[in-house]
């Protein structure tokens, strides 16, 4: 954060730190153990109007900066990865709407509603039959009839699908549109049918509650964002997702490191002056954490600079490569740090019921490589690298 912090940012972060420490941390173990939604933390975020923090003041929101939102993801993620990821995903949807609503009266009014009612927005972007490529859809909007359209989409995962108030969904523009000719539509829960598919008992990020659904909706055409999804994806959804997710992963790794540090300190106090092999390993681990932190922090400043000064740059292949690489690098480095922390702590890190437990951190961080599979991103990057110049 810069030296001059705006009041909206300062207030948000003060509030977020309190919620992280008092609410998210207190429930993190239970949320993880029972794979349940972090309701207490999300209620607290609602109570403090954090769900509308990114919405500009002109639409009634708090007008916090994107840097502050990223910092908030980090603060929450140090205490509960699932809470932070739900918060991050919601803010990604808000960013897509605020940056691409194109003066649509309907979307302006909806964002005012998010402010007033603290609506939680989820996304339905992944789809069965697309091979994990978010830039393609099978589901399509029907031809408009009396000003409304409908769709049905088979989604292998919808994070907090049972708890969201509304959903942003990618679909083909119309029945005859190509797989890549997508739009983003908002539907309220009462306009939808969400038929759950399968169960939710994953390895980590258990509190995000992300089973599959067959989602269908009927909506007025005003609820379609007019900006093509390909543009929203390049300018906002992809870089913002990769940056906010990376902040969550960095936070999880940072807390794992802090636990390892506390372990080493406790050992040093017990045997003052004696050589401590774990202390050396901790020092090695710090350089791994520093690499992760540098990558995440640089990506944030590059995105903010491009957003403010030359937004078209976000659509350039070299920039797309840059934010794709952030995702791959951070998602591989975070579990590495968590595993290193377990190595430092030994058995007390491995056990689930000590102050130095890092099992949840390790499991949560392992989800990172699956959130848009790294293999899929490598395939895209391999192609872009053939043509991009300065990367």
């Amino acid at each position, binding site marked *: 954060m810069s030296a001059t912090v705006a009041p909206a940012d300062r207030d948000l972060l003060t509030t977020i730190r309190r919620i992280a420490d008092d609410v998210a941390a207190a429930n993190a173990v239970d949320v993880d153990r029972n794979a349940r939604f972090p309701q207490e933390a999300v209620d607290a975020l609602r109570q403090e109007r954090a769900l509308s923090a990114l919405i500009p003041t002109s639409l009634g929101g708090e007008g916090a900066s994107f840097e502050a939102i990223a910092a908030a993801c980090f603060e929450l993620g140090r205490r509960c990865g699932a809470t932070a990821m739900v918060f991050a995903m919601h803010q990604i949807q808000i960013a897509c709407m605020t940056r691409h609503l194109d003066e649509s009266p309907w979307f302006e009014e909806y964002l005012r509603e998010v402010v007033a009612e603290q609506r939680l927005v989820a996304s339905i972007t992944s789809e069965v039959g697309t091979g994990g490529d978010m830039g393609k859809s099978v589901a399509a909007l029907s031809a408009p009839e009396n000003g409304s359209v409908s769709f049905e989409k088979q989604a292998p995962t919808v994070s907090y699908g049972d708890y969201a108030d509304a959903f942003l969904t990618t679909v083909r523009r119309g029945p005859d*549109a190509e797989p890549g000719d997508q739009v983003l539509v908002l539907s309220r829960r009462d306009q939808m049918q969400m038929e759950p598919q399968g169960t939710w008992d994953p390895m980590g990020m258990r509190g995000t509650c992300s089973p599959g659904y067959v989602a269908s909706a009927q909506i007025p055409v005003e609820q379609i964002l007019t900006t093509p999804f390909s543009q929203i994806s390049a300018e906002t959804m992809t870089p913002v997702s990769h940056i906010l997710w990376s902040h969550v992963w960095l936070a999880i790794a940072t807390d794992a490191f802090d636990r390892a540090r506390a372990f080493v300190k406790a050992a040093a106090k017990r045997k003052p002056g004696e050589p401590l092999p774990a202390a050396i390993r901790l020092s090695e681990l710090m350089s791994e954490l520093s690499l992760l932190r540098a990558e995440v922090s640089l990506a944030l400043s590059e995105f903010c600079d491009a957003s403010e000064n030359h937004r078209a740059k976000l659509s350039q*292949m070299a920039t797309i490569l840059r934010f794709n690489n952030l995702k791959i690098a951070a998602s591989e480095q975070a579990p590495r740090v968590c595993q290193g922390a377990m190595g430092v702590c030994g058995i007390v890190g491995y056990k689930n019921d000590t102050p130095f437990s890092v099992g949840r951190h390790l499991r949560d961080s392992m989800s990172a490589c699956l959130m848009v599979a790294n293999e899929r991103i490598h395939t895209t990057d391999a192609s872009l690298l053939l*043509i991009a110049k300065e990367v």
Partner: protein
Amino acid sequence: MKDEIRQVVREHGHLSVDIDSLGDGDDLYQAGMTSHASVNVMIALEDTFDIEFLDSMLKRSVFESVSSISAALSEIGVPA
């Protein structure tokens, strides 16, 4: 130049329709060109016209139609 652009798109764009059925301003992505195919179009254009696109040109909107490709090529000195 537009004939050569069309030939490149025909060979590498993997359109779901014949390029002859499209106007110069029609959207190639809406005609089925994928992101992956568009990269192959870019490489083939560099080869055909013996040029290198600037990074600032390497974005979806520049390659979305025969006209936009032609404008980009003109910008880097390819004669019409």
